[in-house]
Each structure stands twice: as C-alpha cells, then as structure tokens.
C-alpha cells in the first residue's frame, strides 16, 4: 500500500545573507491513513519547515523547494498550481499551529472563523456553515458551543483556543492533519486534554496526523512512528516504541536521556551539550559531530546516510561501525 502522504528526498533552500542555505536536505517521510507520525528535534531542526513545505506555504522568496517530491494520495504537490494547492489546503490537508493565542484572527468571532473555513471549501450558506461551526465546537469539547461561537478569540483561554483551531482544522475532514507543536503554549493538564482530543478526532475522522514536537512525552502518548530530525535531515526513523526503547543515533539517545524520570535517583537533569549549528556553517561531515561524544575523523568528513544498521534506520557512522 502506498502511503497517504509521501515525502521523498525533499530539499528546501533559503536565500539568506550567508548565501543559499539548505534548510531541509533529502528529507523522506511518509504517513499512512489513520497513523500518527511524530517528528521530533530541537528548535531549528527543520520540523516546522517540513510542515510548511507540505502545506505549500514556504515563504517564497526567500525559500523554495529545490528538489524532491511531496505526494498526497499519489498527487504531486511540489509542481501543483497555487489554485490546486489552495483547494487542497484546509480540505485535504490541514494544519494546527503552535500558538493558539496568535493563530486566530482577533477581530472575528471564533464561530465566524470556523464558518469561513467551511465556506472556502464547501458550497453552503453562511447559516449552514455557522450551524456546522457550532457542531464542531461541541465536538471538540467546548461547553455551550452556541454562545462560545459568538466569542472573540481573546475571550477564550489558551486550551479553548487550541480546541477552536482543531475544530477549524478538521472542519472539512482533511485526510492529513499537521499539528505543529500544538501543546507547547499550553499548560500540562490542558496538553493531555488536547492529545486526548486529537486521538479521538483521529479515530473518528480516520485522519493521518503528523505531530511535530520536541516533547518526547507527547511522542510516547501519540505517535505510532517517529522521525528524529537534526539540522534539516531525518537521522532516525522507526516505530515509536523502538525509538523510545532503543534509540540508535547519539542525538536520539541524548533526546531520550533528557526526559526526566521519577524515582531514578539522578538529581541533575541531563542535557545535550551545545546547540544546533547554524545552517550556513554546516560542513561536509555529520551535523551532530561537534556535539557528539562518539565522533571520529570519518564523522567530520563524510555525511552519514539513513540506513538500517541492525535495529532500525539511523544516520550515524558510529552506529554503523558498532562503536556505540
């Protein structure tokens, strides 16, 4: 079975004052119907760019898709017309943003905004769209939905706003739902509710979800498969259990070591030393080499490719050479 959304060797570049910088380099991801793919990595790893590229929303200029393909249900998106992309956006492929505070338009009521989204893709009257909007608000667990539909975004709490965003995103029953750090701006109890809601929505609508996050807890709760990204590349990809239990790449190991655990006795929180290097300073070798305890001369000169070195695919010379 071919994947619902299939990204192959995607390359996205940005023109910056340092010259052309490669933000995504041969990124391949796929997600099947009803499946949740977790995409993890630190800030600046290319997670959000992957999401925007999939939506066809790379700000251009300065960005552009320089190579590779994105296929939705077999339809190529990188060469699709803007009009075709518009028809797909919201209808077939929808997105939930990180900041529910800023991703709703402050001057319109939330009901009107959901109704807009419906009317963009379905030929229905405003009345019908408003009724659908209220039903959706009810569906995403907002109490007294008819009254809340008349509220402005700033009258709702962060959790409620994220529910509104989810209602808007699923209003046309998209096949793919991209959630870009949907809970980062919310407090922990609300995070759990939003994940529950996304799970319910997925069961009900059968949508594929791409969950972009840097929260390993979210991955363990939500994801079926995980892709770990670093500096614009996928460096490890496997089932969620596999990655969480036996991470291969030193970066993935580091990310999982960073999860604080109760009762382990460790006092200090672990961290991965250093930061993601600026993209224009990436050399010939592994982008993680400078932060890696296992790096050798080969790591500095040759880019490791994603390949199965025993357990599941990872892009690391040290794993390949069985040094770790």
């Amino acid at each position, binding site marked *: 079975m071919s994947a619902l959304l299939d990204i192959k060797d995607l390359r996205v570049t940005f023109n910056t004052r340092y010259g052309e910088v490669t933000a995504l380099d041969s990124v391949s991801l796929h997600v099947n119907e009803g499946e949740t793919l977790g995409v993890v990595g630190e800030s600046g790893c290319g997670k959000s760019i992957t999401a925007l590229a999939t939506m066809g*929303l790379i700000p251009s200029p300065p960005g552009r898709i320089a190579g590779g393909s994105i296929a939705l249900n077999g339809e190529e998106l990188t060469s699709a017309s803007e009009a075709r992309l518009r028809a797909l956006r919201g209808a077939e492929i929808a997105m939930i943003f990180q900041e529910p505070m800023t*991703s709703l338009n402050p001057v*319109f009521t939330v009901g009107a905004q959901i109704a807009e989204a419906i009317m963009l893709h379905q030929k229905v009257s405003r009345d019908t769209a408003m009724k659908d909007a209220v039903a959706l608000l009810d569906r995403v667990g907002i109490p007294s939905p008819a009254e809340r539909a008349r509220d402005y975004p700033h009258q709702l*709490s962060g959790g409620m706003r994220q529910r509104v965003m989810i209602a808007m995103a699923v209003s046309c029953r998209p096949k793919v739902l991209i959630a870009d750090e949907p809970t980062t701006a919310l407090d922990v109890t609300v995070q759990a509710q939003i994940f529950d809601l996304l799970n319910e929505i997925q069961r009900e609508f059968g949508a594929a979800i791409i969950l972009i996050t840097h929260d390993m807890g979210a991955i363990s709760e939500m994801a079926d498969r995980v892709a770990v990204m670093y500096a614009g590349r996928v460096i490890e990809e496997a089932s969620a259990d596999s990655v969480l239990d036996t991470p291969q790449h030193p970066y993935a190991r580091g990310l999982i070591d960073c999860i604080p655990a109760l009762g382990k006795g460790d006092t200090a929180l672990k961290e991965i030393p250093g930061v993601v290097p600026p993209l224009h300073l990436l050399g010939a070798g592994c982008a993680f080499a400078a932060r890696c305890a296992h790096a050798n001369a080969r790591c500095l000169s040759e880019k490791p490719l994603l390949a199965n070195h025993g357990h599941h695919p990872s892009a690391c010379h040290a794993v390949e050479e069985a040094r770790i």
Partner: protein
Amino acid sequence: MSNQNDMSDYTAESPAREAWRMFRRNIPALVGVFILAAIILLTFYGQFFYTGDAFDVVWAPHERPGVTPEFPLGTDYLGRDLVAGLLTGGGATLAVGATAAMITMIIGITFGALAGFYGGWVDNLLMRITEFFQVLPALLFAMVLVTLFSPSLFTIAMAIGVVSWPQTARLTRAEFLKIKELEYVTAARAIGAKNKRIIWKVILPNAMPPLIVSATLTIGVAILFEAGLSFLGLGDPNVMSWGLMIGANREYILDAWWPVTFPGLAIFFTVFAVSLIGDGLNDAFNPKLRER
C-alpha cells in the same frame, strides 16, 4: 473534559467595545464629538430655522455684529448676511472634507495594502509612485488640479484626496508589513484562503484602528485645504463655503474684522473637534497609551 482555566477570562469584551469604553471615558474626545455634532446639526438643519440665501445682498455692507437684530453677526462687504453664510457654508466645507478623506483612504489603503502585502517589485513600484506624490508641494499641486478641472466641490475634494493619500499609503503599508507576518495570516492560508481574501478580510480589518485615526485627522486637514483653496479664490464660486467667505472678505480685514473672523472660528472649531476625536480614537485603539 472541561477545566476551570477555560472560563477564567470569560467576561473580556470585544476589542471594538473595549475601545468604545475607553473613548467614552475620554473627556476631550467627547467634547470633540459634541462640538462636531453641534456644527453638523447647525449646518445641515440650521437653514430650516434661519432662512435666507447666503449670496443675497440683504443689508448695508459691513454692518457690525450685534447692531441689527435680524443679522446678529453682521454683514460682509457686499451686505450679505454672515449667519446665513456660516450655516450654508459649513455644509460645503464638511462635505468636501469628508469626501476628500474618503478618496484619500481609498487610494491610500489600496496602494499601501498591495505594496505591503506583495512586497518585491510591486512594493517598489507603488512606493516610488507614492513618493512622487509625496514630494510635490501639496497645496500647489492641488491648485494646479483644481485649475485644470474647473473648480467644483467634487474636483476640489478630488484634488485634496489626490495630494494627501501618500501618508495613508505609507501607514497602511507599514501595518500590512507587520500583520502579514503574524500567525493568523499563515493560518488563513493554511485553510486555503486566497490572497484577495487575506488582504481585505484578514489583514485589513486588523489594520483598521490606526487607519480610522488617520482618516479622522485627514478630514481636519482636508477642511483646512478646502479653506486654503477657497481663500486663494480656487473654491467653487457658486457654492458658499467658509473658505470662500474668508477669501472674499480678506481685502477688507482692516476695516471689518468680523466677516473673516467668524468663518475662521468655524473652521478652527471644526478642525479642533475632529482632532480631539482623532486623538481620542488613537488612545482608545492603542492599548499601550491607555494607562497614561
């Protein structure tokens, strides 16, 4: 699946209502509204109570105010009633001001919105055109336009609009540059909205507060412009306006101060009221200034 957090700020108001509440508490702005309302009522309804054609010669020239009960503000150099002039002339002045402000907004918002939204060569082209209009001496350019198209209320409003839109264009462009980067604009794209919809239905409503303020202040500027043009003899000679009254009587100002002073005061109070309202709107829409 509800939590107490959800209902915490339930009593918050809509932005427009909050602005209105702020505006209502602003005494100078309310004074402005009161003065302007009084002037509008007088100019549009005053003629029903105080009949008399402003162009009719009804009495001896240069009658002092308060001498003859029928002409409480006296007469001008031809013996025309000043009260009739003020009441009739206000309509023309206000109409020209409002029309010119509207033209300014239409041209300015269109240029600014397209330039700010599309950026690149569109922005370059539109902003160079804007600068071309900006560097022309406004009054002179307006005079040329009015002379070219024979003075009438509409051509005067047109001329004022054409010379004063660059400010609005720049303001709109700045707002668009700021707002188009916000997440809800990306979110609007993500649900499949077209550029046209994003410009007019998503960004523009959010850019309106400073534009409303600017429009209000533009009315004041346009009224002064109209007065200036009429003063220079470029007003519509068939329509009484405050500027025309000042212009016609300016030569006799040393012998008779009143025919120029009263229309001057009328213009002053109108522009003053409009400015107070504009400042009040500015305070109401700008949360950072609210706590002053």
